[in-house]
């Protein structure tokens, strides 16, 4: 049991190292000339060294794409990422165990001081991974399901138990709804998706969602499934099921439109990116912390409020100049249009909008 984490970390490290070696073997010779002459891609000039990060598993697929993309220009750079969970990532970062962290929640409370102490100054906190969470359902004969936040909260709190409930009918005028029982499907493992979805329900329908927001699903007795794939599988397998999953993983299932203001909005990467733009920045963490209190109760129909935002956390300065150059180059690539496109391709995330990128770029560039 105890060996699980180190083993996995080691496997990840070995895997990444192997990838690095492959990239090196594959492109090293070919890239020699061009990188020496200074390539003009988003990653900037080639850097070398090793940095390691830990944190949110939501970022894992995107991180793999980022590392692969980054190593195309800096084949001698090694970046390790251990998807040990947001909390573990922040703790390790604050304890100087890793050089950067990935987290589904921004640093707050007394962790701010810890992070500042670790960095000996300001820390850099930027959104790098934005993804819409789709409300997925499987109900024969019903397409284009529409749900208001309050109805959604009541459904997931198991206060509404059948599909032909008046509240659902009111959201779907003119549709015939069966009397099938509703089976809510939630994650059985800890998940940033759960945390963000619960946060959405709390923010958009506080009166009907009285549970605490955490990465563990708070309502007992629902159908619980492991991982996004397990959840999607369970929703597909049952009749009258409803659950929540990353939009990119929810293909082939009915996706409910949720009510934003007066309109019903379908999940979309653009809506998720727009939500980040519309959200209020939280500056508790200093000038280089771009934490956002997501506008879950947004009324702008171009935003999709049930979205997930995951952050990268790094120091604004490192004692080792080589390390700071590598962190800076890596994060610059991550937020660049290239990096965001790579993540979209690999993980189905929503690319950061130009406005947000312009806002956060100075913080990344200031890493020294």
């Amino acid at each position, binding site marked *: 049991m105890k060996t699980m984490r180190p083993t996995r970390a080691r496997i990840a490290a070995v895997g990444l190292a192997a990838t690095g070696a492959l990239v090196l073997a594959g492109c090293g010779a070919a890239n020699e000339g061009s990188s020496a002459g200074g390539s003009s891609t988003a990653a900037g000039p080639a850097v070398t060294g090793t940095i390691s990060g830990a944190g949110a598993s939501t970022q894992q697929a995107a991180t793999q794409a980022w590392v692969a993309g980054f190593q195309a220009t800096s084949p001698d750079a090694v970046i390790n990422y251990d998807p*040990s969970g947001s909390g573990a990532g922040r*703790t390790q970062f604050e304890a100087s165990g890793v050089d950067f962290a990935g987290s589904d929640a921004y640093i707050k409370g007394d962790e701010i001081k810890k992070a500042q102490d670790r960095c000996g100054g300001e820390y850099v906190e930027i959104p790098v991974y934005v993804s819409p969470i789709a409300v997925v359902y499987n109900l024969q004969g019903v397409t284009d399901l529409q749900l208001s936040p309050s109805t959604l909260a009541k459904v997931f709190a198991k206060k509404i138990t059948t599909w032909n409930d008046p509240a659902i009918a009111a959201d779907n005028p003119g549709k015939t709804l069966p009397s099938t029982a509703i089976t809510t499907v939630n994650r059985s493992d*800890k998940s940033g998706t759960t945390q963000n979805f619960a946060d959405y329900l709390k923010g958009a329908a506080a009166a009907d969602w009285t549970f605490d927001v955490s990465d563990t699903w708070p309502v*007992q*007795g629902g*159908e*619980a499934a492991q991982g996004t794939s*397990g959840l999607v599988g369970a929703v597909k*397998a049952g009749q009258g*099921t409803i659950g929540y999953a990353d939009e990119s993983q929810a293909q082939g299932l009915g996706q409910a439109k949720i009510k934003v203001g007066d309109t019903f909005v379908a999940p979309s990467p653009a809506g998720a990116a727009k939500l980040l733009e519309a959200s209020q920045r939280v500056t508790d963490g200093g000038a280089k912390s771009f934490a956002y209190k997501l506008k879950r109760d947004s009324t702008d129909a171009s935003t999709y409020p049930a979205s997930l935002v995951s952050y990268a956390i790094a120091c604004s300065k490192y004692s080792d100049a080589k390390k700071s150059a590598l962190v800076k180059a890596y994060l610059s690539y991550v937020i660049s249009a290239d990096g965001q496109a790579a993540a979209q391709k690999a993980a189905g995330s929503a690319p950061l909008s130009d406005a947000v990128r312009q806002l956060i770029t100075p913080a990344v560039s200031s890493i020294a």
Partner: protein
Amino acid sequence: MSAPTTTPTAKPAGSARPKPVQQLGDRIFAGSATGAGIFILIVLAGVAAFLIAQSIPAFTASSADLPGGRNIVAYIGPLIFGTLLSAVIALVIATPLGVAVALFITHYAPRRLAQGLGYVIDLLAAVPSIVYGLWGVSVLAPASLGFMTWLNKYLGWIPLFAGPVSATGRTMLVVSVTLAVMILPIITAVSREVFLQTPKLHEEAALALGATRWEMIRMAVLPFGRSGIISGSMLGLGRALGETMAVAIILSGSGIVTFNLISSANPSSIAANIALQFPDSTGVAVNVLIASGLVLFVITLLVNSIARWIINRRSEFSGAN
């Protein structure tokens, strides 16, 4: 398990040896065997020490710091319940089946069929548990929906089948059946070996006295093999208690206590819960998971001790010693 002492030639051959010659090889072998035995104890003690040391913070932390803000007993309790419930149901299903299969192989089937069947049963034990999990969730669960609806309709007055029936079939019943399939080969293999060792003279005596084949089995084979059946079942129970991935994949579990076997709300099991929660846990949450692991460790230790005790108590009568 049982070196047959009934063969009259075995003993004289041993005692007739003039004197024990202690060669270097003997001493090396004795030493390494002793070392291996001690090593097992050290490993066991090490595991116990690790579990206890790591779970102390969980027991001393205040409830507010624990996952879900609940008391540690309230957190682990349903998990213990779920672990025992799934394992016991699996045992109830698998033991009669395993014994029946073993009897068929040893006493009913034609020799060639028996051999083939034996191989197939042993092969079941070699299938990785994750494969059973995938099979359970994608084949058995959907296939059992109709049966569970039937149970609920006609036997719904029994609390076990009170429903509402799960929409996906990922229930305690399906988990238990999957576990039963997983432990079936263990019970069968052990029982088969013991049944094969039933003294031929006992069997022939029973038949000579006019017993039918079934009466012979009841009088000679089953009493002789009882300790084997029990130890096979306990080995199976041990696997069922500790089964992780199959339960984690199949079961729709949450922290509740219910005897209802066919709804979406089921108590999770300790091992499955650790597998699901560990990856993203930090701080005290990890200690709580290790504390639940300690509880599982104690449960399996108890189960095995009880099994030993039963076997020892019975051994004098069975002739299996």
